[in-house]
């Protein structure tokens, strides 16, 4: 019988079950003579199986609404917004706060928030969420300066950020200050204050001072993986409050933070 030589492509097709039955038999015969090659192909087959084991569970996950409800958007306009806005909009889950009326806060589903700037823009909420995820699980050293040295913390961060800044008090809501740290932001230094409640649930407030170009002052919500983030811009300050707690609870804390920053005691 005259058979074509077995190629590397045949071997891969063998692994992937893409060979016609006759060719498959020929490869079987070929491998029977070459245990090392057979071993190599077994490893490749195992890779296929393991990749499926690793990622097939994603198929059974509920599809996030932002994906099933996604709609076409206008790309030209989209790009323009992406260039101008640093903060990430949060698609259909975006919440808009009209916080101008003192003491009263209204939420409205933001229809104009359907569009979201390019995803890979390193927005305030995104950076805050990353910083939260990186530092909040740290058991030994979640902060650089602890709350026991609050005066020192305030003086240091104010000096480094070039503006007076102090952590809001959230004790009434059950969150005590752990301390703070300085982080690199897009344009310069950024402060992160960390709080925890009695159960150990951690919450971080990310304060950036380079948002003067950002005219988008709405109060917004974003979900970054397991982390929920409320964020807003106030003058040159950008604030983002991050925690792995539900939106309503986080909104309550964000409201308190906003109030204290608006009306410094």
């Amino acid at each position, binding site marked *: 019988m005259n058979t074509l030589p077995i*190629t*590397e*492509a045949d071997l*891969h*097709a063998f*692994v*992937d079950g*893409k060979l016609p039955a006759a060719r498959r038999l020929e490869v079987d015969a070929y491998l029977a003579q070459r245990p090392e090659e057979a071993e*190599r192909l077994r*490893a*490749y087959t195992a*890779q*296929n199986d*393991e*990749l*499926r*084991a*690793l*990622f*097939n*569970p*994603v*198929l059974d*996950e509920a*599809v*996030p609404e*932002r*994906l*099933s409800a*996604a*709609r*076409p*958007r206008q*790309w030209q306009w989209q790009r323009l917004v992406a260039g101008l806005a640093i903060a990430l909009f949060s*698609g259909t889950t975006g919440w808009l706060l009209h916080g101008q009326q003192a003491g009263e806060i209204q939420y409205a589903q933001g229809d104009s928030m359907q569009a*979201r700037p*390019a*995803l*890979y*823009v*390193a927005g305030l909420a*995104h*950076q805050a969420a*990353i910083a939260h*995820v*990186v530092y909040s699980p740290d058991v030994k050293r979640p902060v650089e300066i602890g709350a026991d040295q609050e005066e020192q913390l305030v003086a240091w961060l104010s000096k480094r950020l070039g503006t007076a800044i102090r952590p809001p008090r959230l004790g009434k809501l059950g969150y005590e200050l752990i301390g703070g740290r300085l982080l690199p932001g897009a344009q310069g230094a950024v402060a992160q204050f960390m709080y925890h409640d009695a159960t150990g649930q951690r919450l971080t407030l990310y304060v950036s001072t380079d948002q003067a170009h950002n005219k988008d002052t709405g109060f917004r919500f974003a*979900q*970054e*993986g*397991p982390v929920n983030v409320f964020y807003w811009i106030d003058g040159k300050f950008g604030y983002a409050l991050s925690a792995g707690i539900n939106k309503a609870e986080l909104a309550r804390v964000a409201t308190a933070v906003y109030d204290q920053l608006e009306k410094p005691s």
Partner: protein
Amino acid sequence: MPNSRDQLLACIPRLRRYARALVGDRAGADDLVQDTVERGWGRLASWEGGSDMRAWLFSIMHNLRIDQARRPSVPTEALNEETSMALAPGSSSSGLELRDMETALRALPEEQREILLLVALEEMSYDDVAQTLKIPIGTVMSRLSRAREKMRANMEGRAYIAPLKVVK
């Protein structure tokens, strides 16, 4: 025959699985899927009914990834990888092995990773992979070969020596 809207929606879980494997973190992967779906809706009119919508959507996703790579890199990517590649619950029996797999997959260049994933997860034919990625079939085969051998070397804890095979 389901209409094109339903077909597009039906593709989302597969797009998510692939994107998760390609990108690594959940939020970044879903962002990519969302961009893909939005662009897909916008171009639905240009999709040729009867052709493989799945391949069409994977093409869109591939092009988005290329656009993304051309943009200035975002300094958060490395952290993203650490943050949220949540292993599926229930996979803990061979959890360590799967984690090695995940690490080895991350170590591949993306041009190899995408081919391995289209073949292993999507079970696409090599011709479809070539069409989806707009590259010659020979390139598909050589990248697939390198990807698999590199993964194997990585899983066995030895260095990959390239190139091992000449592909015809």
